[in-house]
C-alpha cells in the first residue's frame, strides 16, 4: 500500500464515524459504571479519538496491533463490535473475550490484536514480537504498538526500540502523549509522565529510529505521519516512532473517570454560542471530534445535517449494543477453569 498523504472525503467521514463510535461508547460507559454494572477501575480514551480513528486508515487486515489499559478506542477503531465490547466490560459470556479480560484487557485477535496488557510498557514488547513475525512472514505487514507517554519510563520500551532498530523490524511505536495537563498523584489524580527527556522522540532518535512528533487531535497530521511511517516500515526500512500529543482530557485527570465535559453535542461544532463557558477550551481547542467536524464543514466535505445524521446513527447503534450487552448472560462460574491451556 502506498502512503497516501491526505485522506479523501470518504475516509474523512469514516474517521469521524469511528471517533463518534468511540465517544458514544465511552460516554455510555461512564453511566454504566455509575449504575454499578461493572466494578473495576477503567480508563477512557476521550480526547484521543483522532489518533486511533486515523491510524487504522493506514493499516491492512493482516497488520498487528497491541494496546494497553486504555484500549477501548483502539479496539473499536479497528472495527470491533461495540456490543461485544460492552459485554466484555460487563463480564458477559458474549464479550469480546468471554468476559475474562474486562476493560483492561479487551482484545480482538480476529482483527489483528495481540493480547492487551495493562502492565505499563508490556504492549511494546509484545508488539515487537508482532513485528518480528511480520518480518519473518515477509509480506510487508507491520505491527503497531499503541502506548502512553508514561510507558517510556519502563525499560522494556527502550529495550524493544533497540531490538526493533537493530533488526529493522516493521514496528510502529505509536506514543500517545496525553501527559500535558495531567495532575500529579499527590494531587489526587493520575500522574503525568516522569521522564527527563526534553523530547520523547529524542529517545527513539538516540537509537537511530526515524521519529516524528505531531498534534494527536489533528486527523490530517496523524494521517500524514502514520501513513508515511507505515509505508517506511512496509518497505523494510525499520521501525518508526510517532508521538501524538494531546492535552489530558479533564475527565481522565482524577483517579476515577468523570464525564466532566458532559455528553458530547456535535452541534457545538458550529453553534459556538451555546458552548458552556467552563469547558470552552475543550470545545474550541481540544475535542478532536469537534475539531474534525469543523474542518470537514470548512472543506465542505460534509454538511451539518449529515453530521447530525451520522451521530444519530452511531447513537442508535450504540444504544442497541448497550442493550445487547446488558441482556447478555454471565458465564457460568465453573467455566473459569476452562481454557487455561490451548
Amino acid at each position, binding site marked *: 500500500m502506498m502512503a497516501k498523504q491526505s485522506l479523501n472525503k470518504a475516509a474523512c467521514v469514516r474517521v469521524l464515524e469511528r471517533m463518534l463510535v468511540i465517544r458514544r461508547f465511552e460516554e455510555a460507559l461512564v453511566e454504566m459504571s455509575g449504575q454499578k454494572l*461493572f*466494578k*473495576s*477501575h477503567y480508563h477512557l480514551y476521550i480526547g484521543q479519538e483522532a489518533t486511533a480513528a486515523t491510524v487504522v486508515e493506514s493499516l491492512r487486515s493482516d497488520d498487528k496491533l497491541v494496546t494497553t489499559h486504555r484500549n477501548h478506542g483502539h479496539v473499536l477503531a479497528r472495527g470491533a463490535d461495540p456490543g461485544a465490547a460492552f459485554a466484555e466490560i460487563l*463480564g*458477559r*459470556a458474549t*464479550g469480546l473475550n*468471554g*468476559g*475474562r*479480560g*474486562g*476493560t*483492561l*484487557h479487551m482484545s480482538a485477535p480476529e482483527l489483528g490484536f495481540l493480547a492487551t*496488557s*495493562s*502492565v*505499563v*510498557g508490556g504492549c511494546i514488547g509484545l508488539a515487537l514480537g508482532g513485528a518480528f513475525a511480520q518480518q519473518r512472514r515477509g509480506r510487508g505487514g507491520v505491527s503497531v504498538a499503541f502506548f502512553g507517554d*508514561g*510507558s517510556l*519510563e*519502563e*525499560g*522494556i520500551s527502550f529495550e524493544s526500540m533497540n531490538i526493533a532498530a537493530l533488526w529493522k523490524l516493521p514496528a510502529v511505536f505509536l506514543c500517545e502523549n496525553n501527559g500535558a495537563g495531567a495532575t*500529579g*498523584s*499527590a494531587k489526587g489524580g493520575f*500522574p503525568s*509522565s*516522569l*521522564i527527563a527527556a526534553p523530547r520523547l522522540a529524542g529517545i527513539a532518535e538516540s537509537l537511530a529510529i526515524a521519529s516524528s512528533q505531531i498534534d494527536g487531535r489533528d486527523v490530517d497530521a496523524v494521517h500524514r505521519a502514520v501513513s508515511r511511517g507505515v509505508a517506511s516500515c512496509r518497505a523494510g526500512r525499520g521501525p518508526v516512532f510517532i508521538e501524538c500529543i494531546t492535552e489530558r482530557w479533564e475527565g481522565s485527570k482524577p*483517579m*476515577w473517570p468523570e464525564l466532566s465535559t458532559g455528553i458530547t453535542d456535535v452541534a457545538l461544532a458550529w453553534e459556538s454560542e451555546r458552548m458552556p463557558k467552563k469547558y470552552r477550551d475543550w470545545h474550541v481547542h481540544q475535542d478532536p471530534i469537534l475539531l474534525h467536524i469543523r474542518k470537514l464543514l470548512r472543506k465542505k466535505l460534509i454538511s451539518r445535517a449529515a453530521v447530525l445524521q451520522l451521530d444519530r446513527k452511531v447513537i442508535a447503534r450504540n444504544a442497541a449494543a448497550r442493550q445487547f450487552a446488558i441482556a447478555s448472560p*454471565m*458465564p*457460568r*462460574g*465453573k*467455566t*473459569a*477453569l476452562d481454557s*487455561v491451556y490451548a
Partner: protein
Amino acid sequence: MKPMRKITYSQAFVEGLDYCMRKLPNFSLLGNEVMGLGPQRVHLETIWRNYPERVNFPPTSEAAFSALAAGAAMSGEHVFCHLGAASFSFLSMTSIANEAATAHYASGGKIKVPVVFHMLHGLRIGGGTQHSMSPQSMYWNVPGLQIVLPSCARDAKGLVATACLSDNPTVMFTHDLLIGMEGEVPEADYEIPFGKADIKRRGKDVTLVATSYMVQVSLAAAEILAAEGIDVEVLDPRTLVPFDKKALIKSVAKTGRLVVADESHLSCGVTAEIAAIVAEEAFHHLKAPILRVARPDVPTPFSRPLEDFVTPTADKIAAAVRRVMG
C-alpha cells in the same frame, strides 16, 4: 476501661509508617498509592505532608526504583518501596530476588539491606489477570527475604514498623480488601516481632492456618462451623519468613487436623509449604489428610461469577474443615 478505638487498616498502616519516620531519620518512602486507588488512599497524605523530603514518587520504572531502594539500603538508608499491584513486582523481580535478597549473604555478611518492598495482592473484584495476583509463595521461595502478610489493622501497624526498622529486605503484602477494614488498634507505637504466629481464634478440633485476608474469611468460616459444633483454631503466621513452625506444630499436635487457606495459586503456593512442613514434621499427630484452600491454578478472570468461582470463601473453607472432620 474505655473500649479501644477502631481505625482502618490503612490508618493503622500509616501510623506504623509515621512511627518509623519519627524513629529513623534515615527512613524514607518511595512510591505513591501505597494504600491503593480507593478512598483509603488519602491517609498517606499525612506522611506526604509531614515528611515531604522523605517521600518520593518515582517514574513507572519498577526494576530501577526497586534497585534504587535496595542500593540506598546498602548505603545506610531505610527505604519503604511501594510497587503497586503485586504483578508489577515481576518487573523488579531481578532487583528483589537477584540483588536485595543475596547481597548480605554474598558479601559475607558485610552489607545490610534494610528495604521493604510493599505490594497489593489478592482477588479484589474485577482485578482480572494482571491486578489480582498473590505471589507470596514465589517470594517465600527466595531465601534472604523476610515475608510479611498482615491480616488486620492492628497487625498492619506493628508489622510495618518492624519491617521498616529491620536490617533485612522484606516483602510485605497488603490485601486490597483489607485496606478499608476497621479494627481495634492501640494508639501507642508498637512493633510486632517477626516469626511469632498469632492465634486469632482458639479451638480444639481443627487447626486452620490462614494468611492475610484469608484470616478474616477463616474467622467467618469458624463462626459457621461453631454453630455446627466444630471448634476451629485459626492460626495466623503473620510472617512466612521467619516462620513460626513451633506454633504450627503445637496447634496440630492438639487438634490432629489441618486445613490451610491462602490466596496464592495452589501449586507450590503457601498452602503447599505449610502442608509439607506438617507432613514432614508432625505427621504422627495427623488424624486426617491435610486440605488446602487456595486459588485454583488458573489466571484470574475478570467476570464476576468466574472470579467468584476461583475465590476462596468462608463456605469453601468450612467445607474443607468438615471434610477433615470426617
